[in-house]
């Protein structure tokens, strides 16, 4: 039996996601260990990104028949709420996500998906609808981001646990954070299976974002998914993080395209995490620029 003890803060920032993936690496990288203790009692903060990644790793461990004992955070009321609202508590109790489309407080609880991305956006829109009135264009931006990220998992990941999504609306920042992750073969792996000759992984991802490069996992793939995600997220002034097989990428919204992140993960879990965060300004109107157009979304 080995213990994986997490401590400190794992919020919704890219650096938090990178550190979490690095710390979880032993769970996917030590096939000889059949029994794990996840000890989260000393964490100070957890966010939607952490919930998705923890959920995916937990599901993978269950699928592999590992014996798991999980100590969820029990310190502050907010951390106890986190465990409940994200569905982590349910997951640990039952071994499967509750799969509820009903948002809880500021979270959409963990959702596992295998085939269809259509319904994933519903719960996020329902969550935001509890706090704000969102217009059709913003809703479509959000739904397309989710659909494209989820469809990438469905088409390319070969993840035995499918994809896992969690979402949080942060009311003080007026920001919605969505994380979709899998434990599949990673972006580089899917490109290699498609016979793509990659000079480097980073170069491939950059090209994928700018021009559209596809592994052709399906004959109809055109390599547009990540590019559409980038446009949708940056169009709303948000951030997009892609994390896969040793490299991370982030969007600097002051420049038009993908920028290589400054933090590389030496050995993250397999698969990919696609985390997007869309700010929603509180000035009474929501302004987002997309393709040179200004959208105004009144917030009631």
């Amino acid at each position: 039996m080995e213990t994986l003890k997490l401590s400190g803060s794992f919020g919704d920032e890219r650096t938090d996601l990178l550190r979490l993936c690095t710390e979880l690496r032993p769970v996917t990288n030590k096939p000889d260990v059949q029994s794990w203790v996840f000890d989260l009692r000393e964490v100070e903060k957890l966010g939607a990104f952490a919930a998705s990644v923890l959920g995916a790793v937990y599901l993978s461990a269950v699928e592999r028949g590992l014996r798991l004992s999980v100590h969820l955070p029990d310190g502050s009321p907010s951390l106890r709420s986190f465990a409940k609202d994200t569905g982590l508590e349910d997951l640990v109790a039952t071994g499967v996500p509750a799969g509820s489309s009903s948002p809880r407080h500021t979270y959409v609880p963990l959702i596992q998906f295998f085939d269809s991305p259509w319904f994933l956006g519903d719960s996020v829109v329902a969550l935001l609808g509890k706090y704000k009135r969102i217009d059709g264009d913003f809703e479509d931006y959000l739904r397309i981001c989710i659909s494209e990220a989820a469809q990438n998992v469905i088409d390319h990941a070969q993840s035995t646990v499918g994809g896992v999504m969690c979402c949080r609306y942060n009311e003080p920042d007026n920001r919605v954070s969505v994380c979709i992750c899998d434990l599949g073969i990673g972006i580089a792996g899917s490109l290699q299976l498609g016979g793509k000759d990659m000079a480097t992984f980073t170069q491939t991802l950059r090209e994928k974002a700018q021009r559209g490069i596809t592994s052709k996992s399906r004959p109809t793939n055109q390599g547009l998914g990540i590019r559409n995600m980038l446009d949708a997220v940056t169009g709303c002034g948000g951030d997009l993080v892609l994390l896969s097989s040793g490299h991370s990428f982030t969007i600097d919204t002051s420049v038009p395209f993908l920028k290589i992140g400054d933090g590389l993960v030496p050995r993250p879990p397999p698969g990919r995490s696609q985390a997007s965060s869309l700010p929603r300004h509180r000035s009474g109107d929501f302004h987002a620029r997309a393709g040179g157009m200004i959208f105004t979304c009144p917030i009631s």
Partner: protein
Amino acid sequence: MPDLVTIKASQWVAPQRAVTDSAEDTAHAIVEQLRAGNSVEVDLTDVRGVPSSYFNLILIRIAEAHGLPTLERVTFRFASAVQRTTYERSAHAVRESFAA
């Protein structure tokens, strides 16, 4: 003069259906109408969050069945500007891949 037939895409969209299944059914309906000599308008106004895979598959099936020029006989009614952009990007990619 061919008739213009409107197809509501939402009839093949369901929460648990794969995008590819929804697209295949929609494409089949479009191809049949084109075969009958009609022009087609695809109404997407009550379908949200359409990923590029959906458009790719529909456009490719039409082009495979009737050739690339036939795409001119198919129009789309969009739910939003971002949906239109997603479609236009797919249409461009499909045209390029068929031309190659």
